[in-house]
């Protein structure tokens, strides 16, 4: 089933409590997906690059050997970051398997990401000037407090609660997906894609890597591929309605925009609230009510609709 949510503040200066608001929205939709919860949050962009990576899985057996492995992977990853030509300005171990780092780097992101991921079992969760992807097993309350998201200030974000249907329950298969290797683009998706293998082969031939076996990852990489060829976010999303088969409602975020697309059957839900100070959307209105206390007007977008807002 899965639940998706997004929020973008009209005055997008990065001073809004997007982490707390997103936790509230996702927690109220826990019944749509209790397996894992994920966030793609945007803070005020900087010149530096923010890297989030995981060294292992949350459900790997945690023993002494595992602790050694994680330590070794961190050392190797740091060495690979430097070898790629990046300077580590700050690095934080959020939990045994998650690292957040601020990097000074001017080169190509693909070069950097590939260097980091050449360490076995290390996966880049997100790379960009403003984007941070946080995802883990459990509900929004658990993930939000484990990653201290209540104090996360930013301009916009999307989130996902997952009920796994076609791939494993672990962090690699949790949403949101970063649009490797495209800076600051992330996607969450509710639905199933039926031409997944076709697109995966096509995109792999074009040189993209896939970190999971989840069909939703295709959307992120597909959009990134089109945008790297010069399409705007909206144009890329419109084209996706023609080229992706299946049932879907997905949200895509970039450094300054948030877009939503629905398939031609309008098979998956989305409720939309466009207020004066923010735009909020979710699979169920109850999630929007979790951040807005008064009576509001909301509506469901129709089939084949693509809508984009900027901060």
């Amino acid at each position: 089933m899965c639940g998706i949510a997004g929020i973008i503040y009209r005055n997008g200066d990065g001073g809004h409590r997007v982490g707390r608001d997103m936790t509230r929205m996702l927690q109220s939709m826990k019944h749509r997906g209790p397996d894992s919860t994920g966030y793609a949050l945007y803070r005020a962009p900087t010149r530096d690059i923010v890297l989030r990576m995981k060294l292992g899985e949350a459900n790997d057996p945690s023993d002494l050997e595992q602790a050694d492995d994680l330590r070794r992977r961190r050392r190797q990853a740091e060495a690979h970051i430097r070898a790629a030509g990046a300077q580590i300005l700050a690095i934080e171990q959020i939990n045994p398997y998650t690292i957040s780092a601020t990097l000074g780097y001017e080169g190509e992101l693909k070069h950097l990401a590939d260097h980091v991921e050449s360490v076995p079992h290390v996966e880049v969760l997100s790379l960009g000037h403003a984007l941070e992807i946080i995802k883990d097993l459990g509900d929004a309350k658990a993930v939000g407090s484990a990653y201290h998201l209540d104090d996360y200030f930013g301009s916009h974000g999307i989130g996902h609660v997952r009920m796994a249907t076609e791939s494993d329950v672990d962090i690699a298969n949790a949403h949101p997906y970063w649009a490797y290797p495209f800076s600051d683009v992330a996607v969450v998706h509710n639905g199933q894609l039926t031409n997944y293998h076709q697109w995966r082969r096509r995109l792999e031939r074009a040189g993209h890597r896939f970190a999971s076996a989840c069909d939703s990852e295709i959307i992120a990489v597909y959009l990134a591929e089109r945008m790297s060829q010069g399409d705007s976010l909206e144009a890329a999303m419109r084209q996706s309605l023609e080229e992706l088969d299946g049932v879907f409602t997905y949200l895509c975020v970039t450094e300054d925009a948030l877009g939503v697309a629905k398939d031609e059957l309008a098979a998956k839900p989305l409720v939309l609230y466009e207020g004066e100070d923010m735009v909020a959307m979710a699979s169920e209105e109850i999630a929007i009510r979790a951040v807005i206390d008064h009576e509001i007007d909301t509506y469901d977008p129709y089939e084949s609709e693509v809508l984009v807002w900027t901060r």
Partner: protein
Amino acid sequence: MDALTLDDASGRGARFDARGLVELDETVPRIAEISGHAASFDAHDLTTRQINLELRRLVYEEGVTDVTVRNPGARHSLGVGILARCRITFEGSLGYFGCGMIDGPEVHITGRVGWSACENMMSGVVVIDGNAGSLTGAALRGGDIVVKGRVGARSGIDQKGGTILILGDVGSMTGFMMQRGRQIICGNAGPGLGDSMYDGVIYVGGSVKSVGIDCVPGEWTDDDTELIERKFSIYGLGTPPKFQKFVCGKKLYNYDALEPSERKLVL
């Protein structure tokens, strides 16, 4: 195993079984202010189950015929399964499955409703001031649903009776597989209108993006005019616009299973 207290969908503490999956029976909160045949209560701090228990207590035990529920907060499954003549007002919005399987009540919702509102309703009236989600009036058996805003996709899917009156636009596949009953749509209709309908009538005031399989324009009769004028006057909606009528083409009634090569032989 012991019961757990967990947050329900709207963050209120509700009692669940030890697996955290099934919400346990609640005690009736008994917080409504009753005066004569009317009563009202604030749902803000209640769980979904408590709201429905309080509603049922008022209607079935206290003989109240006019209930007002404040702050429903877009929660799911509110006002379901009420099987008595009464008047219920929700001051606010409902989530999914609002007022499903009701038989008799006159319900007024001042906000909007989510997916599958009034599914399998048997009789009564539901008036929604705002918008409605997809699958509104799914498998409707009788009664009237009036939506003053717009609705999502597949409204009246599998409809078996009753009337759905929508002042705004409707999404794709409206009236999908409907078997009886009427839909009066004042706005525009999305693609696949009346797809695979067996019977029933759909009136559309605006434009139709495309009709579905075996949905064809119908012949207008005086009965159609009478029905629409009557419904508009009951709900105080003023003068009705001009409508197009769509019915079932009955081409799908007989199954044509011949392969193209076989058909050539037969002909």
